[in-house]
């Protein structure tokens, strides 16, 4: 089973600041997904990255997949209180197998 390391575990920042969250593994990812979970809800898919070096943008969120497909980052520009939540990276070992999650980064954006 592939192990995912996420950092930092906790992050508290002021509104308007930028931040980066990291997800790493010692193994190559076939693909990697980023989810956000808000209190009282299940995780919601933000993005899937598949190709090494890939960069995807979702409004103020920029997702990057490492060239070697062993790491990924999520960068948020000008964070807003609505960005508060638990950010999780996840991957599959193969095919239709279930997602395995990292430990998550709990982000708090203070107005």
């Amino acid at each position, binding site marked *: 089973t592939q192990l995912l390391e996420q950092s930092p575990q906790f992050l508290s920042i002021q509104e308007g600041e930028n931040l980066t969250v990291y997800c790493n593994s010692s193994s190559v990812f076939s*693909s990697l997904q980023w989810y956000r979970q808000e209190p*009282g809800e*299940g995780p919601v898919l933000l993005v*899937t990255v598949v190709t090494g070096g890939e960069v995807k943008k979702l409004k103020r969120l920029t997702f990057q997949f490492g060239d070697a497909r062993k790491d990924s980052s999520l960068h948020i520009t000008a964070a807003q209180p609505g960005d508060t939540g638990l950010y999780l990276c996840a991957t599959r070992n193969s095919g*239709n197998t*279930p*997602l395995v*999650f990292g*430990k*998550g980064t709990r982000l708090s954006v203070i107005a």
Partner: protein
Amino acid sequence: SAVISQKPSRDICQRGTSLTIQCQVDSQVTMMFWYRQQPGQSLTLIATANQGSEATYESGFVIDKFPISRPNLTFSTLTVSNMSPEDSSIYLCSGGLGDTQYFGPGTRLTVL
């Protein structure tokens, strides 16, 4: 896409009792899974719910403690048996459609 609902949304139970959580998906999904999320923690996979056959459990989870049913492609149940306070957690149902997994809102269980 798929919308997943769970019942109950939360419950408070006494030690030694059992609770069955229901999961309903609004479309047919190929795979269904059950996860546990301890307070402030990430998601840990309990088992894959297989239609018409026994669920596939992850290491550390057993059928006697967490019996699972999946009678069709859109419905599954998870029972937490003989509960103890250590079972207090959020239990999430998930359905797979293509490369995407969708999640229910979770059932928050507190065992006294």
